[in-house]
């Protein structure tokens, strides 16, 4: 059941409920055939609403949805040819697993024999062949999720829409399903939109991520772009962990962090700024030289988390968390120690405050 992939384009898609602020405001997105795009953002930022507008389940207030160059904005969902996996799975409780998966094929008027073959194939794909005659309520959460996935995939939709499909699973199963969904999507080459509020999930699975903030796309880019070059403080804060320190930037591009002076690779607007540094990119042993920012500080707290040691160091009036992998034989800093924290100039993110 290989799908060649279809282009999906959103043009200034908007949704306003009542007369409050828009739930989705002019979201534009161009999804290449076979691409796996993540919609990432905090609760209430409009991810589900965007997905539902793409699927035709919620009418849009303005804007267009194009599938393969065709405008489907006003098409009802049953004519859109999209597979949707709902957060609640929405499996039909009165049908067994096989009937659930067969439903979409029956609606397409396939012959009985063809349906049986495709259903068996789809269930094998998600490794549920043995449970074909169970009812949904007799399945575990992970199994239900895979049935929902098989049901959406078996119709070979032009677009696959996933709304937080992993959020009901425990951590271990979630990681397994992550890999499984990723593999299946790549194998079938289906253009996919994946909604999640879990940044690790988005980074691990998606070709590109659209980070959403209050109904808008705050940044669109590859996981690497989003993580290394966040476009705003919001993105830097939402994706990955970071130290935030209030600082002042001068017209000369030098940033004053208390009594210390640090630099950033990117040009910095003069005025009050927030300096952000990823905790694992800070160390105590930075080489002297142009490429590094080095500040003296005092260790205030040390937290041992097994594979990692988190040291909170007071630097220039702020606290910088330094994460170091624990290794036998390395001297560990103690509370009260004077240390020199260092990080690369290129790892210094600066945003106007």
């Amino acid at each position, binding site marked *: 059941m290989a799908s060649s992939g279809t282009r999906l384009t959103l043009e200034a898609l908007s949704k306003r409920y009542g007369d409050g602020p828009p739930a989705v405001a002019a979201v534009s997105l161009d999804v290449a055939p076979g691409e796996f795009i993540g919609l990432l953002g905090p609760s209430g930022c409009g991810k589900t609403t965007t997905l539902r507008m793409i*699927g*035709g*389940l919620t009418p849009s207030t303005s804007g267009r949805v194009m599938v393969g160059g065709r405008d489907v904005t006003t098409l*009802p*969902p*049953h*004519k*859109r*040819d*999209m*597979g*949707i996996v*709902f957060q*609640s799975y*929405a*499996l*039909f*409780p*009165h049908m067994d697993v096989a009937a659930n998966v067969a*439903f*979409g094929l029956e*609606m*397409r008027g396939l012959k009985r024999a063809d349906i049986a073959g495709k259903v068996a194939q789809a269930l094998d794909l998600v490794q549920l062949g043995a449970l074909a005659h169970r009812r949904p309520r007799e399945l575990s959460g992970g199994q239900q999720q895979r049935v929902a996935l098989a*049901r*959406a995939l078996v*119709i070979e939709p032009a677009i696959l829409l996933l709304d937080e499909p992993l959020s009901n699973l425990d951590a271990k199963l979630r990681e397994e399903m992550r890999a499984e969904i990723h593999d299946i999507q790549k194998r079938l080459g289906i253009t996919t939109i994946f909604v999640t509020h879990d940044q690790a999930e988005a980074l691990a699975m998606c070709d590109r991520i659209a980070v959403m903030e209050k109904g808008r796309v705050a940044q669109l880019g590859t996981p690497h772009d989003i993580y290394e070059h966040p476009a705003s403080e919001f993105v830097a804060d939402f994706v990955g962990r970071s130290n935030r320190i209030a600082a002042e930037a001068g017209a000369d591009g030098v940033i004053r962090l208390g009594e210390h002076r640090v630099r950033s690779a990117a040009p910095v607007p003069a005025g009050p700024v927030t300096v952000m540094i990823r905790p694992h990119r800070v160390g105590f042993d930075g080489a002297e030289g142009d490429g590094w920012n080095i500040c003296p500080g005092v260790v205030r707290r040390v937290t041992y988390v097994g594979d990692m040691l988190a040291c909170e160091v007071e630097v220039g009036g702020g606290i910088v968390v330094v994460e170091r992998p624990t290794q036998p034989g390395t001297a560990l800093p103690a509370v009260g120690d004077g240390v020199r924290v260092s990080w690369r100039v290129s790892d210094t993110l600066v945003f106007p405050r």
Partner: protein
Amino acid sequence: MRLSALLLGPVLLVNLLTFLAPVLNLASLSFNEARPGGGIGPGPTLATWADLLADPYYLELVTSSVGVAAMVTVGTLLAGYPLALFIHRASARWRNLLMVACISPLLVSAVVRTYGWMVILGDNGIVAAALRWLGMAKPPRMVFNLTGVAIALVEILMPTMILCLLAGFGRLNVALEEAAASLGAPPWRVLLRVVLPLSMPGVLLGCLLAFVLTVSSFITPKLLGGGRVILLATEIYDQAIVTLNWPVAAALSVLSLAVFGAALLLYGRILRIVEA
């Protein structure tokens, strides 16, 4: 478990005294022989039952009662289902209002509602007048026949049906309908394949009640039927009050209980299939 049995005690006792005892009394009465003029002969004898079962009139009475009840049940379901679905889907505020509006006819006695239908459906009623105005020279007769009885019974039973349906809509879920639509099902197929199967418990319960209430309905067929629509309950009344043949009335009562029992069995059977 023992406490619940104890709590059930009073209800069981009351039911024993007020339901089971009279029913047993009736049943035993059907094994007496009728004497002309309302007398009751000594028993036990199978004479009444033998007469009853040999007379094709009574067989037809039972089959026509069941037939009319089935027709009225289907009519009530068809009329009530869309309304119930609409009420179920309304916003919380409207839902309560619509529920009250739907159930309020229960506050008016069936006698009054039947007379209301006699006025509406009568030869000079608004329905006939409307049909005449639309150009129909001779509108069909709608009172003192089965048509009127069926229309009135459907209306009278609708609140009950709607309540049953609403109680059975618990498993309906908009997400399931959306899932079906996303899989390519147009609205009518969503209704047939998802909504209807999921609401079957309510449908079955509503049908059971509508059926039983029709078979035992008395006032509406009596008044609107004009003596031409004879159901089990009206016949029992005639036998007991007009003909003064108590053993036959008792036997017919037992027969109608048997019909109810059969309906209940069928209900249980179908419900098990639906819920499996």
